[in-house]
């Protein structure tokens, strides 16, 4: 693996080995669990587009995997993505790729909730 550039020199917490060990002790977090962690920057279900952070929803699986692995290996200068990617295993990257590939590349809508809930609930009850 390449060295992080000097500008990203400060790192800490558990070592890569400890990280691996924890991963082996518990079931892998689901693709949804991993993918939903990205929404603060990339939007709900990865569907937000803005200048500095591209959308992930609907991204081709192979492309996502290649990008994340390249980030992880620090193959080219990036602003935060190497720092984010360095802790993920191949399997975790793949689970995230699946999660984003199945999202629609548009803002998330579900207009029929009110009806769905009404059908199941007594009117106006706080209970």
């Amino acid at each position, binding site marked *: 693996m390449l060295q*992080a550039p*000097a*500008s*990203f*020199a*400060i*790192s*800490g*917490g*558990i070592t890569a080995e*400890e*990280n691996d060990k*924890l*991963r082996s*002790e*518990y*079931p*892998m*977090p*689901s693709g*949804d*669990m*991993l993918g*939903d*962690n*990205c*929404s*603060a*920057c*990339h*939007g*709900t*279900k990865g569907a*937000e587009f*803005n*200048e*500095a*952070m591209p959308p992930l929803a609907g991204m081709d699986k192979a492309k996502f995997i290649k990008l994340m692995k390249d980030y992880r290996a620090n193959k080219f200068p990036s*602003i*935060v993505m*190497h*720092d*984010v990617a*360095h*802790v993920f295993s191949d399997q975790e990257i793949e689970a995230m790729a699946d999660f984003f590939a199945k999202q629609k590349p548009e803002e*998330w*809508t*579900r*207009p*029929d*909730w*009110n009806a*769905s*809930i009404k059908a*199941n*609930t007594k009117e106006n009850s*706080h*209970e």
Partner: protein
Amino acid sequence: MNKITRRDLIKLFGAGALSTGLMGASSLAFAKQSAHIVIVGGGVGGAASAKYMRLLNPDVRITIVEPEPKYIFCPGSNEVVAGFDTLETLTVDYNTLKSRYAVNVIQDRATEIDYANKKLKLAKGDVLSYDKLIVSPGPDFKYGAVEGYSKQLAEGDFPAAWHAGPQTLTLRDQINALPQGGTVLISSPVDPYRCPPAPYERASFVANKLKETNPTAKVIILDSKDDFIFHDVYLDYWKKEHGLGTADARIEWVPKKAGGHVTKLDTKNRTLTTADGQVHKGDVINIIPPEMAGSFVRMNGLAKGDWAPFNSQDFSTKRDKDVYIIGDSAAADPMPKTGYIASNQAKVVTKAIQAELTGKEIGTPFITNNCVAMAADDWGMTVAETFRYAGNHHAYEESYVMSDPTENPYYRHIRAEVAKNWQRTFRKDIFS
């Protein structure tokens, strides 16, 4: 009331059958009866819980209890203090959560949990029944840690401005009215407090503004700590831009070991006294008090010491399995108290609740905090932290990479752009 409650089911089938999800049929029945998820606090943690719960389940009933009609984001509020953003930009309402996500929002303050009957009492007298209760009321401030300081003073002439709102504007106006050559004192608290880099970001923004409008004025940070996140980046910035360490430095940082820990406020003479007896006079005095879990959390027996402990797998409280604690009130160390963290804790909780409702196993949680801060409009910094589950009765294990001072202006500039982008995306992720 003919609804089958979870308690009824437990009586019939035993708690074990329900919690392990072996009772497929009973879990389904529970879902069919529309479980009621009640949320205390409509801030970052609470609103994210409501939205992400709805993304998982179209049928549950979701209620937020929040006393304020609107929410003002704290991320971005230092920009308001320095005058390059407005509170309006940071203000959102609950209309989208109500209409798009079918969330019931009750404008009231939650007061008491009746654990035995799974009911939540509200200040105006309403009582809500819940199947699951998510608590995210943010922190309270320990005004008493600084002798002579109080909530009344914070709401008056000595704003803390650590919860965005009227105090943010008071502080901004005071800085605008600072006499030429005047002094701004910022007291930075002991850990843990919401948004660790924010006092230093605030000091930088204020100094930048003074450089233009009031170049002989000064900012002095009186710190209750000897170190802080992005220490090297901020000190580098202050040296380059504000002459840190020189006789006419525009910014000074007094760590705890140099006597920075503030113990006393004298409102009449406008001075702060520190632990070793130094007296600092300030035209503007901004005390950021130390924090503890919100009063709702402490009054309902959810806190141990200042913060509320929880089971790591799902953030259910140690006090009661059906009551969850997230956000700044949770004893989540080594996770910092940020909105980013609060929103990701919300996702862990809602996934755990959904798993229980559908009789599935609760999965392994995972949390990131990719935080951004700025020293100036084109001088940003980032920290990427991940928190791995290390067992239900253990703290999460942290791994992080953070910005170092860099001579590369492109890095600094793009990081600042990332920071600005993030604020917009984040607000949308929670409230739109």
